[in-house]
């Protein structure tokens, strides 16, 4: 596929924003500098500095992404893959170059293996509807885990109901890691393993390589829900070895409304279309239709063009920071947070999930005394601290934990120790109401 070599919407050095675009060798993340790229973080709420600790839900957006999308709309917008005029061609080039950037970012050699979706939920549903309904029948086994977000759970429940497939669940151990003692038995005869790369509640990082190898040995394909993984560490689909991998743009500095399904080309070529209509079609007659090539076969209708271009800018931004540095920053900050919470509150505060130094993502779910997470979150809001409170769209996991809700702090490139300190200080303020 031809890919535009130039990216005219990329901010020009020295004229745009002072973010580190130049490729760098591995180095520490300069959080103070990164923060400057996120105007939203300058907001004051309830008279307090905004402390945003909910990036696992949705990340904030750097100026580079916002400006790129603005510039796309103010200079280039037209529908893609249609017009022969100049700006239509430029829009198409930008859209396809975003696809190429995303492909490169996750180590996919072939941009044709990148399908743009609405979000990771749609990416997983695409696989469940297209591959699943085409390949699974009564008694066929799908394996998933107790760690999953509803997005990687409900589609398989639905497939069980519709097709009579069998659903097996990899269970949790008390430390928040998966119990893999009988992995081979669970996978025996399976057609698909659908597994998260990083738990959105506990931060657990399952041993992907081991899981993928075991699944393949059992003859199963592997779908990886990488929504909490791709934004935070270097991801290489070939190294992971998965067959399908989904993630979403808005958790990785990009806009909402754009997600990604990566899948091996031969799988995509064999799969029937998911949504049908324009764009995904090659020919339509009264007696039938033929589909477009991958990936466009799965992109019915006018796609989210500006969103894809924005995601491309987000990828540029992350690559310039270096994903190794991003991961190391979050690992250190998470360790600092867990340490600080324990030091201040001792046994009054329970951090759920793998204990340090068990590897975990930059996600810390906790409960404080018997204060309900909603009440805690309300108190934290008063201090300007934004955390998620609730079941995190993972009710099977919450049942395992035996809690109806937790508070969850999650970290990204613009968070620093001062943000963690604000969180730690604010938690204790609930004592005056609920102590």
């Amino acid at each position: 596929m031809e890919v535009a070599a130039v990216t005219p919407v990329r901010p020009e050095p020295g004229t745009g924003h002072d973010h580190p675009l130049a490729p760098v060798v591995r180095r520490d993340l300069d959080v103070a500098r990164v923060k400057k790229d996120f105007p939203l973080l300058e907001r004051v709420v309830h008279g307090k500095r905004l402390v945003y600790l909910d990036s696992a839900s949705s990340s904030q957006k750097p100026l580079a992404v916002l400006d790129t999308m603005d510039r796309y709309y103010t200079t280039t917008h037209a529908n893609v893959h249609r017009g022969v005029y100049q700006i239509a061609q430029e829009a198409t080039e930008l859209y396809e170059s975003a696809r190429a950037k995303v492909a490169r970012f996750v180590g996919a050699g072939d941009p044709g293996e990148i399908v743009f979706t609405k979000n990771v939920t749609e990416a997983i549903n695409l696989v469940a509807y297209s591959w699943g309904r085409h390949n699974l029948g009564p008694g066929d086994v799908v394996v998933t885990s107790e760690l999953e977000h509803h997005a990687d759970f409900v589609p398989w429940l639905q497939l069980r109901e519709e097709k009579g497939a069998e659903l097996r669940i990899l269970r949790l151990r008390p430390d928040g890691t998966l119990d893999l003692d009988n992995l081979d038995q669970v996978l025996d005869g399976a057609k698909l393993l659908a597994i998260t790369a990083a738990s959105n509640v506990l931060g657990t990082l399952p041993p992907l390589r081991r899981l993928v190898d075991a699944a393949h040995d059992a003859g199963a394909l592997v779908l990886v829900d990488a929504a909490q993984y791709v934004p935070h560490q270097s991801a290489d689909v070939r190294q992971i070895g998965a067959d399908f991998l989904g993630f979403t743009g808005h958790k990785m500095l990009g806009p909402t409304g754009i997600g990604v399904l990566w899948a091996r080309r031969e799988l995509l070529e064999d799969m029937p279309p998911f949504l049908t209509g324009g764009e995904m079609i090659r020919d339509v007659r009264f007696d039938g239709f033929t589909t477009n090539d991958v990936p466009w076969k799965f992109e019915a209708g006018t796609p989210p063009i500006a969103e894809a271009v924005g995601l491309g800018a987000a990828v540029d931004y992350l690559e310039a920071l270096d994903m190794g540095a991003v991961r190391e920053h979050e690992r250190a900050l998470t360790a600092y947070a867990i340490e600080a919470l324990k030091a201040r509150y001792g046994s009054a505060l329970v951090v759920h999930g793998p204990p340090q130094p068990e590897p975990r993502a930059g996600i810390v779910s906790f409960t404080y005394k018997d204060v309900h997470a909603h009440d805690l979150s309300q108190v934290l809001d008063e201090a300007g601290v934004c955390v998620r409170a609730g079941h995190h769209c993972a009710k099977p996991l919450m049942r395992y934990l035996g809690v109806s809700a937790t508070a969850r702090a999650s970290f990204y490139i613009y968070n620093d120790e001062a943000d963690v300190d604000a969180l730690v200080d604010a938690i204790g303020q609930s004592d005056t109401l609920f102590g």
Partner: protein
Amino acid sequence: MPGLEDLYREIILDHYRHPRNRGELESPPAIRAEGFNPLCGDEVVVYLAVDDGLVSDLKVSGQGCSISQSSASMMSAAVKGKTISQARATIKAFRAMMSLHGHQLDGGADGVAALSSDAEMDDRTGPEVAADEGITLGDLEALQGVVKFPVRIKCATLSWHTLAQALHDAEAESGG
């Protein structure tokens, strides 16, 4: 800007710490109704015993935040021992109190919309509705501050939805 003291009044915290009528009733004969808030996972179960047109007993179980639990506790205290029509009037008055009326905020009002869906909307305040219905809201008025925190309205209304369902089921069961 509303402060936390508008939300967490002392009477609310008292009901949260010491919930009234907490527990279960044998069902049947009691009516059992469940309410869930799918967004936050809060759940409430209302057990309703009706005898000769009276709410002869009422118990509440479940789990949730201070607003949902205290609202359930206050609700139980407000309607236990009252007639069915008084209970319905209380629901109506509470419903009016939890509607945004003059505030007219967008978003977060899903709980209101759901609670109001089967009710005629008017411009009366909760206390006005209560006065017109010949009842008093009493402690329940402490929950008025919740309206200033629109995302929490659905916490306060969860148990009331569930009571309305239980009353409906009781009526259906009695062939009414």
